[in-house]
């Protein structure tokens, strides 16, 4: 049921639930942590640029994990970086979400067998909400993943278990 469907005639009053309006506000302003790890970050930047314009979803890149809702893990997670990724995740305020972008952060990608230094999937250190396949995924794939995340946020319950 859409937010504006229970609208009164004069247009100034809308009936909804607290949860509905909170989740709607939240999913329309998911701020991302601005960091990229490898070539997937180039596609992530392309998604932010004017042609794809991920900002129309309310996505703002923020330089501090304290101000972020979503961490896009865009690229190869080395074991050296994994400890940093985990710490950044822990520094984010809840509710927080993780988008795993590309084969490397999904499962190790091309480094799955001989990458002695690569973490075989970022879900070994942080919980992942959306996995985006591709090597690297096109910006459209990131937008699709973002909309999946928004659907997830829309169903978030604060008051009671559904």
């Amino acid at each position: 049921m859409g937010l504006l469907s229970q609208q009164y005639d004069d247009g100034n009053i809308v009936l909804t639930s607290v949860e509905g309006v909170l989740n709607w506000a939240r999913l329309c302003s998911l701020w991302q942590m601005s960091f990229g790890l490898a070539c997937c970050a180039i596609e992530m930047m392309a998604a932010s640029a004017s042609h794809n314009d991920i900002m129309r979803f309310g996505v703002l890149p923020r330089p501090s994990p304290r101000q972020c809702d979503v961490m896009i893990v865009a690229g190869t997670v080395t074991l050296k970086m994994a400890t940093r990724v985990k710490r950044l995740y822990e520094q984010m305020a809840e509710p927080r979400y993780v988008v795993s972008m590309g084969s490397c952060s999904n499962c190790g990608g091309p480094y799955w067998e001989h990458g002695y230094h690569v973490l075989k999937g970022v879900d070994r250190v942080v919980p992942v909400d959306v996995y985006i396949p591709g090597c690297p995924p096109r910006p459209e794939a990131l937008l699709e993943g973002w909309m999946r995340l928004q659907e997830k946020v829309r169903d978030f319950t604060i008051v009671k278990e559904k």
Partner: protein
Amino acid sequence: MGKTHEEICTYLSELFPDAGLEYDDAVPCINVPPALIREIALQVRDDAELAFDTLMCLSGVDFGDGTLGVVYHLDSMSLRQKLTLKVTIPVAEACVPTVERVWRIAEWHEREAYDLVGIVFQGHGDLRRILLPEDWEGHPLRKDYQVQEFYNGMKVPY
């Protein structure tokens, strides 16, 4: 254009008659005994006939037959000539004198060779790992390297 490897080898052999320098035809290079690498490096840098002012690359190698190697690719900007020096050492005594003070760029190259192949450069001022984390175990580009099961609680194999 400048001297060939063979000419340089003959020239250096006259200066260092006891060094036992060998010219290797397969890939043009000069085999240098490890103990003399620093002296030879200073000579080829400062000799007006050679003037190798630039260290283009310093590589650590595991040949897989129980020996390790360090390969020095040198370039002379002024005389437009190139030179490759090679040092071979047994795995058990993976120790080579540093050329950090001869070409300053060697500092990071030697740290990389130490990090990945495990060659210790004697006299290096700051021989730490450069790419891998400091608490890493082993040297991954060794042929007998085994991937560790866990690193800091994270499972490593797929």
